[in-house]
């Protein structure tokens, strides 16, 4: 039979979970992919965090963490593969397109609506691609119990060592023919090469209630390339002033932890949408050019987004107990709702075929025995990307991850420390798609039936479907993400 106080806590816990699940969340692409790299349970940190990683995953858990500083390094290897199906005969765009006019009824013609390059003139070949490589992440964190057992402050940072920030936009459709001419992983790759800096505070207003809030740093850049071209016939003569302004913006997140029953912890998290933005564009002046009314230059706007993570709501629960006289155990599970249906891609565009909201889950556990701590963790992260049977080629796979870790507490020179190691393997489940004429937004015929603009003769090479869409007629993807890390914490 529950005590009245316990019943009240339980009700409060449920209300908090309902409240948080009706709101939105956000995140860091690095931490969402590899989790808390300095703990044995990287995926279930929203309910099992014991250190500065709680600043990001659930700041409510900061109250209860020891006053520590910690640092660690993690090697992250991404082995990502995208294979493309061979193109059938007759779909190449021929060089006739430069003389073509689209044929309309009644013998009239019009300018081509699509401007593909002849397939033979594309700068990059269309190939199956291996993405990835190894990167090193440095993790630095600290927790301070400002008011012991009541108020805790924390900072947590994950910094790519080799390349502080990377941003590689690409188009998900036929427009990518002008650039890489291959499909690319939308939610991996360069997204892991972005620094994450989080500051957070946790407060324990009641003996059974902890709340917390934090801020993640994101960037908002404005890139402006002012150029003057004195002679369009001399392309190599351009006077330009390129400038970049980078502002920092704060993206908040919140957490709550309730202990409705002894040994039982119920948590909720809320992360607002996160993204790094780059705006601005080219301001191009051309000698002798008549600009639009009121304009003194040709303005070519630029919008790119990187590291986009949508609103998310998480809920979790853990339960623990004693293990003999020297040990303790705790298992936890979390579920996270991701509002990927609101996703905007690297060019700030909403996918033509809307993405799905997802519900991902984790299951982890940790055992403390003496100075040793071991943990395991498991996760499943469904892909929000629907089968790309139409015009777009967003590459993404459902991931299943396994992680394990060990750490040991010790004293050195009278200072309490904890050193640990962690490893994880995430499998991107193989996936393949074939383009379909029945798609809601099918692959476009970039070279519609046309005639030669000079002679009026039909262009046979325009008959049927011609496209340089890199994903046509299909592609497949799979991969592995593996990590190995070590960390050291000092208890102050």
């Amino acid at each position: 039979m529950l005590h009245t106080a316990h019943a009240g806590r339980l009700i409060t816990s449920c209300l908090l979970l309902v409240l948080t699940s009706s709101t939105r969340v956000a995140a860091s692409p690095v931490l969402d992919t590899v989790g808390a790299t300095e703990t044995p349970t990287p995926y279930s940190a929203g309910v099992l965090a014991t250190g500065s990683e709680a600043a990001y995953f659930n700041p409510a858990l900061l109250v209860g963490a020891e006053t520590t500083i910690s640092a660690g390094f993690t090697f992250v290897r991404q082995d990502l593969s995208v294979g493309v199906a061979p193109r059938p005969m007759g779909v190449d765009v021929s060089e006739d397109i430069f003389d073509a006019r689209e044929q309309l009824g009644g013998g009239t013609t019009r300018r081509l609506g699509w401007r593909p390059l002849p397939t033979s003139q594309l700068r990059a070949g269309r190939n199956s691609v291996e993405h990835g490589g190894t990167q090193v992440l440095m993790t630095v964190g600290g927790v301070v119990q400002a008011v012991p057992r009541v108020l805790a402050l924390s900072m947590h940072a994950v910094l790519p060592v080799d390349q502080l920030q990377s941003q590689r936009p690409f188009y998900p459709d036929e427009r990518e023919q002008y650039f890489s001419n291959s499909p690319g992983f939308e939610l991996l790759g360069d997204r892991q090469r972005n620094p994450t800096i989080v500051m957070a505070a946790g407060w324990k207003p009641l003996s059974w209630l902890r709340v917390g809030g934090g801020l993640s740093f994101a960037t908002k850049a404005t890139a402006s390339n002012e150029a003057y071209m004195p002679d369009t016939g001399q392309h190599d003569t351009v006077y330009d002033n390129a400038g970049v302004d980078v502002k920092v913006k704060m993206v908040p997140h919140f957490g709550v932890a309730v202990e409705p029953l002894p040994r039982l912890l119920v948590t909720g998290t809320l992360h607002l949408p996160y993204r790094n933005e780059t705006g601005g564009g080219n301001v191009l002046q051309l000698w002798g050019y008549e600009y639009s009314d009121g304009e003194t230059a040709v303005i070519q706007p630029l919008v790119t987004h990187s590291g986009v993570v949508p609103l998310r709501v998480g809920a979790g629960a853990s339960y623990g107990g004693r293990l003999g006289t020297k040990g303790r155990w705790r298992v936890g599970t979390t579920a996270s709702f991701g509002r990927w249906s609101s996703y905007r891609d690297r060019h700030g565009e909403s996918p033509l075929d809307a993405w799905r909201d997802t519900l991902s889950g984790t299951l982890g556990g940790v055992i403390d025995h003496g100075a040793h701590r071991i943990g395991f963790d498991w996760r499943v992260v469904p892909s929000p990307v629907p089968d790309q049977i139409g015009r777009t080629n967003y590459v993404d796979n459902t991931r299943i991850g396994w992680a394990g870790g060990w750490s040991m507490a010790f004293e050195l020179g009278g200072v309490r420390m904890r050193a640990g190691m962690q490893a994880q393997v995430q499998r991107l489940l193989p996936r393949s798609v074939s383009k379909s004429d029945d798609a809601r937004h099918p692959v476009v015929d970039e070279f519609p039936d046309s005639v030669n603009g000079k002679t009026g003769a039909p262009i046979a090479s325009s008959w049927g479907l011609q496209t340089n869409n890199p994903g046509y007629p299909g592609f497949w993807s799979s991969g592995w993400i593996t990590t190995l890390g070590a960390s050291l914490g000092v208890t102050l």
Partner: protein
Amino acid sequence: MSGAGCTFGGSDLYADKSQAVGADGGADSGSEATAGGDGSDNSLPDVSGTWAQRWVVGSIDTMPVIGDVQASTKSLMRVQVEQRGADLLMRVETCLVEVDSGTEIIQEVIPDAFVASLGISVRAVWLERQGSRYRFVQPRAYELRGVRLLDVAGEALPTSAQDPRVYDQDVDGRPGVTVRVTGLVDGEVWVAQRDSHEVEGEVVSLDRIEGRIRWLKEQAILGADNPLLESPLPSVPDPNPDRSTMVMVRTSEDMQCAGIVAQEAELFGEQGGGG
């Protein structure tokens, strides 16, 4: 006509049409065309027959972004000449019109339908003795394209596709005649045009006539399928008279337009069209 006593360079002017340039070509200058010593009219050279004619008119076009460029328009024509004394009646069939825009960035293309719509025009020309040579004089003539005007020379060109004087001359479903633009900017421009030109040349030989062209061209834009092409591009004749030239070479009677286009280099002896 009788050829008695009428010779160019000692040969019989009227009997020697066998020197027409055939398919194996070569602009053989043949006999030099000079007046006989007695100065009588019956010393006129006989230029009747079938000719290939090449016009190259040079212009200075002001292109957006690029500025002034030296452009040229080359026309190849098949001409049948009837001669009555010094008066010539030329039936001109246009075989090809090519524009060298003077820049790779923007090129103007004259569609075949445009060329085909030009049909056969008739031009009155005369020969005029000047010393020992004969001038080839084609007085100013006007040509309208895509528009019908009562006052061919003086009436302003219409500027609206809805103007009843505008008609679809090249039968492509667009008003006026269609000119195509490719390159940095591409699209179709629908225009009404008025050309006027006069030619003054010389009968170089029985098989070759050369001259210079004085010309003016007016063009009204009736529409375009690219807004950037809706503004008229200023174009004036190149003041260098050597860039606007006419050459006629005699051909065999059975040489048609396709042959003239295919054998341009052989017929005229040098590359044309570049201004």
